């Protein structure tokens, strides 16, 4: 009996040891994974408290252009040029903790939390004012200025990154604010657009429209063998039963009977039903729902690559139906859609693909018009991974940290986030995207002398004809010297091919000229 007891004691002791090891491992893991998030939280009183005892360091772009500094009187001041302040406001952030930019993400360095106790001691004893390190960002301020200029007054987001290193070279979100006037915005003495403090690049969740066809295409390559050799018939709208959402392959309708609601997003279908007047005789529109092409232009017999280049809705809706909701969802998940990101340098919201319930919803989800939501940065990362042979890099904002005596304390290196595509898949997608810019909907994104690939999108956000669509373009330059990936979204600007693609082409051209 006693011997058994001792055996049990040993077993319990082993359990206790395991518990304490878990405690240590979890402590290290959790601080490693979430520490930056917790530290940069606007609730963290330590950051604000540190500002009174430590002079915050400077923020500059990758070439040293000054973006933020602390004046001798302790006032935090931003770039001298007003347009530049506004262009980079979301990247740099503000000193009141209202937005999540470099000011809060890199407060650890700027406010000297990273200095060793010995350094702090020497500075304090020496009677010097403690000064935090300076931070250089990966962005090029000139490129940001230019992107801001190109966006005009459209709301939306532009992001440009190096797909081999993950460095963000430009990131602009509109509407924007001027960090010099943050106190006035808070007090209300200066007006500001309601969502101006939201960084649309990382936090804007948009319906992706046709840019989502890339996801459907990847799913088709994975689950429908031989799909690249097949020919599709794009001869008219796909018809669905209105009440059940079931696909009716044998029925064809004249889609001119349908008002634009037929192609409207899933969000609006409920509203559309409510608007129906019961007194009217039953028309096709009351019985059926349809998936049709943009401006009802059908493409006839078409190959998969052509369908992608021409952004053929019916073909991709058919593909989505064939693939099925579960495998669509699996593909989206494998590409990182829905991942909760914990990057050190920036706060990126999750994108989402919600499994559609009916065939009608499934068909629309395949062309990015169901409840799919993407952030511009994630769309850019997806394109970047295609260009980078399937490897998605971690997006980076921090170029290097420089101490007050000009000593480079930390230089970050490129890190892969995950491999989302096989090299063979990436090859096919690169060809498909090059086709879009060469002869498809994205021709306006061409840059002379360079092979540019991409995908346009026109996300319809309302049944109302008066409201313009969101214009999307995401693309890349196929060039080892200039590994650039871009994503542009202009809210209510019109079609992706006429509004977003030209902007992307110009910005890519400028970036190549600047040597990126």
């Amino acid at each position: 009996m006693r011997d058994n007891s001792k055996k049990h004691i040993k077993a319990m002791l082993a359990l206790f040891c395991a518990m304490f090891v878990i405690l240590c491992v979890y402590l290290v893991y959790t601080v490693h994974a979430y520490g930056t998030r917790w530290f940069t939280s606007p609730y963290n009183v330590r950051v604000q408290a540190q500002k009174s005892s430590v002079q915050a360091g400077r923020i500059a772009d990758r070439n040293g252009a000054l973006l933020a500094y602390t004046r001798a009187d302790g006032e935090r001041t931003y770039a001298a040029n007003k347009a530049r302040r506004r262009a980079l406001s979301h990247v740099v952030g503000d000193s009141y903790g209202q937005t999540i930019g470099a000011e809060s993400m890199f407060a650890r360095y700027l406010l000297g939390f990273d200095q060793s106790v010995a350094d702090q001691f020497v500075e304090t004893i020496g009677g010097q004012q403690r000064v935090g390190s300076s931070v250089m960002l990966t962005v090029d301020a000139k490129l940001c200025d230019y992107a801001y200029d190109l966006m005009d007054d459209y709301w939306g987001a532009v992001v440009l990154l190096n797909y081999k290193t993950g460095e963000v070279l430009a990131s602009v979100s509109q509407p924007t604010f001027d960090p010099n006037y943050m106190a006035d915005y808070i007090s209300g003495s200066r007006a500001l657009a309601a969502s101006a403090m939201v960084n649309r690049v990382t936090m804007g969740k948009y319906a992706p429209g046709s840019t989502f066809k890339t996801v459907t295409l990847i799913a088709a390559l994975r689950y429908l063998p031989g799909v690249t050799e097949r020919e599709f018939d794009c001869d008219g709208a796909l018809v669905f039963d209105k009440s059940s959402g079931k696909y009716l392959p044998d029925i064809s309708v004249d889609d001119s009977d349908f008002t634009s609601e037929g192609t409207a997003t899933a969000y609006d279908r409920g509203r559309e039903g409510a608007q129906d007047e019961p007194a009217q005789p039953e028309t096709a529109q009351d019985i059926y729902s349809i998936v049709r092409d943009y401006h009802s232009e059908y493409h006839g017999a078409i190959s998969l690559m052509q369908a992608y280049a021409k952004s053929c809705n019916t073909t991709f809706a058919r593909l989505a139906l064939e693939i099925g909701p579960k495998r669509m969802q699996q593909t989206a998940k494998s590409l990182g859609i829905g991942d909760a990101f914990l990057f050190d340098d920036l706060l990126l919201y999750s994108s989402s693909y919600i499994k559609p319930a009916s065939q009608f919803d499934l068909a629309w989800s395949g062309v990015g018009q169901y409840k799919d939501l993407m952030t511009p940065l994630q769309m850019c990362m997806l394109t970047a991974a295609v260009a980078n042979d399937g490897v998605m890099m971690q997006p980076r904002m921090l170029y290097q940290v420089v101490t007050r005596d000009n000593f480079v304390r930390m230089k970050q290196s490129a890190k892969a986030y995950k491999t989302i595509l096989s090299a063979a898949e990436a090859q096919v997608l690169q060809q498909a995207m090059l086709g879009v810019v060469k002869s498809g909907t994205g021709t306006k994104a061409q840059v002379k002398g360079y092979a540019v690939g991409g995908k346009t999108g026109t996300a319809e956000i309302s049944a109302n004809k008066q409201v313009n669509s969101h214009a999307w373009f995401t693309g890349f330059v196929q060039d080892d010297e200039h590994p650039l990936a871009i994503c542009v979204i202009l809210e209510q600007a019109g079609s992706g091919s006429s509004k977003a693609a030209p902007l992307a082409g110009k910005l890519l051209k400028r970036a190549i000229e600047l040597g990126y």
Partner: protein
Amino acid sequence: MSAMGLLGIVMLFELSAFALLAFRSEGFDPLALLFALILIAVLFLQYVCMLWISKYADRFILVIANLLAAIGMIVQYRLSPDTAFKQLILYGAGLLAMFVCVAIMHKPALFQKLNWVMILGSLGLLCVLMAVGKEHGGAKNWITIARVSFQPSEFVKLALVFVSANYLTTRRSWRGYWPSAVFAIACCGLLVAERDLGAALLIALTYLILFYIATGNVRTTLIGMGAGCMGAAASYVTFDYVRARVAIWKNPWATYETSGYQIAQGLMAIASGGAWGLGLTLGSPKAIPAYNTDYIFAVICEEFGIIFGIAVIALYLVFIIRGALLALNARDRYLMLIAFGCTSLITLQSFIIIGGVIKLIPLTGITMPFVSYGGSSLIASMMLLGILEGVAMRNGEMLEDAMDAAMEECRKEERAHAG
């Protein structure tokens, strides 16, 4: 490392920490140095005393427990010198209680005689608590008698160890064990009703561990665990505050303004400290609610750093391993169960609170043994230490007796051969 060397390092640590505290503000604070000297003197004296009582005293658990208490008092002094001095007095009372326990453990049968006193006393205290207890941090676990507040649950858990060890040693079957099980369940029920979830969890798990060790009956132990889980599930369904705890654990940031505030503040403090800490006196630990009691581990991580936090966890682990070794070396079942019961209490209590603070498990308010501010907690922990030391001494003496007897036997045999 020898225990003497460890003792020296602990003294050096105490001296340097208090020296830092003495210079923290403008001018020099001689009280901090006085504090350090008192601590060092008390540590040295009790070390000598303990070894004078018996050379079999376990030096490691003594020094480790004192180091943990010293870390606690350093943090208290940094937060507010007044509470640190209060804690110092309580620490003195704890030392007294420790030596009393050592003395009683010389005749452990005494505890067996007190069996019913402990049962009725514990249940009585918990019932009185229901009626007149004072609420503190959401739990009703304080009694105030003549302006002295104390937390009965801290002592009930010790009673549980003795009562269980008694029944599980003297009886041979479930028919004999049942009073101890009823006692444990009754304590748990009362504690849950008083919303002292941490203590309830501690008592339930400790009893199960003791039961398993003593009987080796896996089936009954699993049934007990199942019943415990059902009880936990039932309390999740019935009590709003249990549900709230779990919700806060899942995402403290969602309710930052209200119930998630404490956990979120703790996490920010730990994250701000980083690997090496912000440095003693350089953090903002007072932003965390319960900074000197339940949340003291977050304060330690903030100012001393995560590496130091891991060292504290390691200290507990060494203490626990030594405690378990004492149980393994016990020459008598009763002592074995008592030693392992005390070890389990320290293990579970430190795991529950550290795990809660770092958000590994839902937070249930409980003190960190030896470190947290609070008389009941510190005195109970010191009593635990005294009991373990008592077991160590008994182990040594009994081993000595056994060796003497064996030697005598040998001599007899030799004489018989010679004759």
